[in-house]
């Protein structure tokens, strides 16, 4: 059972355009929704994250939009640059009450920004 569904699988955007990646989740106990960015040969690194008590969070060119009722969240990359070309993963976790919280990941989106 795939608990976090991510789309599209791949995306090509022109330089300066807006990249949009969408995720949907099923488990209403999830309370933390991060996006990770992975470059070839590297491990994923946290890009931006949101909790369900807010509908939007912005950090520089990166914005998460969150729709709790629809159980969906999305990543928007404004003014996309060639350096943004990477694989992006959405993820979700729930508060285990002081223990370790494993992340449930989407399948990833391979983003290419064309110059």
């Amino acid at each position, binding site marked *: 059972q795939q608990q976090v569904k991510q789309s599209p699988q791949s995306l090509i955007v022109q330089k300066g355009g807006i990249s949009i990646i969408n995720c949907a989740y099923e488990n209403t106990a999830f309370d933390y929704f991060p996006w990770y960015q992975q470059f070839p040969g590297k491990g994923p690194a946290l890009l931006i994250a949101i909790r369900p008590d807010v509908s939007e969070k912005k950090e520089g060119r990166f914005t998460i939009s969150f729709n709790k009722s629809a159980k969906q969240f999305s990543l928007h990359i404004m003014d996309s640059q060639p350096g943004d070309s990477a694989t992006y993963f959405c993820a979700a976790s729930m508060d285990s009450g002081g223990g370790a*919280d494993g992340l449930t990941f989407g399948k990833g989106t391979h983003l290419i920004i064309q110059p």
Partner: protein
Amino acid sequence: DVKVTQSSRYLVKRTGEKVFLECVQDMDHENMFWYRQDPGLGLRLIYFSYDVKMKEKGDIPEGYSVSREKKERFSLILESASTNQTSMYLCASSFRGGENIQYFGAGTRLSVL
């Protein structure tokens, strides 16, 4: 900077071998995790640990075990490697409590022949 170091970038093993993947973090994190990454499947959680000698099963623990004898070190063990365990293995660590920010190593690409 947080550093999560995985001992090998590439490993080639034979079917039936016992395989050890090692991970060390230098930030005194309580939590450590092992994921495997496969094309088109994303990252899937194998095992995690919130303290020394403590371990919890993730979503796909079958065929794997783990060991955490020291806080900074978390080992993934394949008792009898099989070809379907050919994958990229990623280790991560995080602080207990607060925001669940996980820091990942660069990964170990394991091929089982």
